[in-house]
């Protein structure tokens, strides 16, 4: 029997300053293996069985830490302090205007110039899972407050990977974390995700402007964004819709149901099925938003085992706050304060569906 209580770790190269990087592995009774690096608290690979029990890697990722540092794809990393975009790279809090890194035109994207995804996290093993810690100093990317972040990864025998995020700050600051895993359930990176069948439990989404900043809230009914009944991604990418032309595919945030500002339960919000392998991904979260991204910007990206990832080689389902939500009128719930810590729970479960 494999002892599932102790995650194994191995050296995995080093950063430019010679700091060693490690790769940790979570396992379960089905033989699943999830490899996680302390660089960016990144999900590097996830080997999961198909309908015949054969293991295949369902995550896109790179082979070396150097490739992660060189890439702008944010593969599998924890994103902070702010996931997705902040328009104009600015916000006002308690009467003070804060100016942030502008790393995508005039806007902030995914934490700014440095970002949590490029940091080396401290790791502790805990009850079979991994506890990853990061201290983000006041002024990082322009945000106030010293923030202590803890991300707890755990894998159960049903194939469910739980990502439990907690954070504290010594001063009020906005915080919005996510994981930027790209999935390809076929286990074969050469096959794109157009054949995957997706359902998303949401009746509204945000339309975006040319800089991909949300500009208005729309109903999904009667258009390409309606995944309340499952549909193949490839067919929907070809439906006529100016928002799809604008973003080169899906790169849009859905408004999840049960979206009270505080105290939301973890609920199942999306499912993706690959007919070829029979693998099925289920996403559950306590967040209000779910960004559905179809890898529109991927182009000749270095991948696992020397492969290259092209357009639509993977998809992301990123749970979090709404993009640029910090610049909406109602945003108090996004502010972490000394007496009000941050918490998010998001779960990805991989299984095999009997059939469609």
């Amino acid at each position, binding site marked *: 029997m494999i002892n599932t209580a102790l995650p194994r770790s191995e050296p995995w190269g080093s950063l430019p300053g010679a700091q060693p990087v490690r790769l940790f592995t979570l396992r379960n009774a089905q033989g699943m293996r999830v490899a996680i690096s302390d660089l960016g608290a990144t999900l590097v690979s996830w080997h999961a069985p*198909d*309908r*015949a029990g*054969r293991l295949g890697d369902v995550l896109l990722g790179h082979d070396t830490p150097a490739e992660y540092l060189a890439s702008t794809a944010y593969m599998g990393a924890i994103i902070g302090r702010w996931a997705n975009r902040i328009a104009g790279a600015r916000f006002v809090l308690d009467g003070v205007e804060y100016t942030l890194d502008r790393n995508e035109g005039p806007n902030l994207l995914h934490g700014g110039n440095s970002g949590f995804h490029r940091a080396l996290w401290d790791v502790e093993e805990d009850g079979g899972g991994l506890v990853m810690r990061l201290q983000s100093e006041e002024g990082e990317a322009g945000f106030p407050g010293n923030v202590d972040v803890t991300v707890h990864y755990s894998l159960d025998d049903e194939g469910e990977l739980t990502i439990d995020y907690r954070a504290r700050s010594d001063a009020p600051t906005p915080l919005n974390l996510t994981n930027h895993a790209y999935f390809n359930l076929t286990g074969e990176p050469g096959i794109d995700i*157009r*054949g995957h*069948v*997706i*359902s998303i439990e949401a*009746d*509204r989404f*945000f*339309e975006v402007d040319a800089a991909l900043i*949300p*500009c*208005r*809230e*729309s*109903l999904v*009914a*009667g*258009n*390409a964004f*309606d995944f*309340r*009944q*499952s*549909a*193949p991604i*490839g*067919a929907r990418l*070809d*439906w*006529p*819709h*100016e*928002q799809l032309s604008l973003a080169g595919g899906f790169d849009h945030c859905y*408004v999840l149901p049960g*979206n009270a500002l505080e105290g939301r339960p973890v609920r199942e919000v999306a*499912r993706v*099925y690959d*007919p*070829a392998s*029979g693998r*099925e991904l289920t996403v559950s979260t306590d967040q209000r938003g779910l960004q559905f991204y179809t890898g529109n910007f991927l182009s000749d990206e270095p991948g696992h085992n020397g492969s290259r990832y092209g357009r639509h080689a993977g998809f992301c389902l990123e749970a979090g706050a709404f993009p640029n939500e910090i610049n*909406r*009128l*109602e945003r108090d719930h996004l502010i972490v304060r000394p007496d009000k810590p941050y918490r998010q729970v998001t779960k990805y479960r991989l299984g095999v*569906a*009997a*059939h*469609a």
Partner: protein
Amino acid sequence: MAAFPLKSRINETGNGTGDKHAAPTADTAYPRANPTMTKPSVPPKAHRIALLFNANKVYDREIITGVGNYLLSTRIGWDVFLEEDFRCRLTGIERFDGDGIIADFDDPAVSEALQGSPLPVVAVGSSYEDGSDYPSDVPYIATDNLKLISLAYTHLIGAGLQHFALYSLPPSPNHRWARQRELAFARLRGADGRSPEAIEDEIYRGLSTSAPSWNQAIEQLTHWLQALPKPVGIIAVTDARARHLLQACLMSGIPVPEEVAIIGIDNDPLARTLTRIPLSSVIQGTEEMGRTAAHLLHQMLHGARFGARRILVPPVGINVLESTRHRPVASPYVARARHFIRQYACQGIRTEQVADYVGVSRSSLEEHFRRELNCTIHQEILRQKLDAAKALLARRDMATAEVAIRCGFTSLQYMHAVFRRELGCTPREFQERASAPTPG
């Protein structure tokens, strides 16, 4: 032209975000889409739409279901014209007093009748390898034949098979999709290094199905099957054709899936109920085809024009059943025994009868089972019965007592006990779990 005045154009850009009468209720600082544009005091007149399909087939029925689902997901009210018996008749279609048509273009008569139609038309049908085979003037929603065959082929490879074949249909203008599936198969086999001649030998078209030629058709099919290298995985271009294969295998004693693994296309429940060995099948994206066609027509009714735009819809699943559960076994005794068990487990057969059929002693057959499958003959019979019971329960149209009888359990109590022991739940609990919604 259309007999009904078009609704005021609620969607000027044709981007698919029209018809939002209901404003979302959650709190937001962003402007809502479509604030006050459509609050008609009188409901707009419904568009009158004809659906030209032969809904006696499961494929066409599911496409129509998709159209219906699209309408239900929106506030669109279409006045839908369908023939009384759900079949397609073209007589008088040029005098159809309506606003738009969605039609099955696999039927050449349909595409011909609609040529130059003044009404907006959306075509639905087969994909074609050669772009010039598509109609040049209407948007076209296609089932992606290459993806269908590729999914079936990948599945057979995954089941451990190394020889492959395709059972198609004789060429006919009404079955152009069958030819497209042959081309797809040839392309995939070619990519795997087979020569064109070798591939041609792997494709068998057989006879068209008719009562007088039935015996002859099955005879010729049996010949072809017997000549194939074994074990072989065969893709049938429809479930109806797959059923012929099963029939021929059963009649000539070829074990399925040990010697011949079979996968069809359509996931047709009727074809499944007519076969003794449950048939694996590729599930086409038919509902999505219907939704897509309805969406395009909806946009066209509001002024959008799509020219000869094509949208290919991939398959959405495989129903994996016994006919492709190929587990290579070394012992021919075990293969023959399992073939017998699969057919007759539900009729209450006993271990001795299996040994008699195979023609070896019971103890020797038990030894083979232990070595190859790590179970007893009795356990294999029970597994078959359990699988059959699970499939019937999932259909939810039969009392549990009836299921017990049909699957060869001597009593309902015994079936209960087996479910408890093997699955840790009662038949009823299993049924509840099985009927939970699944994607695709």
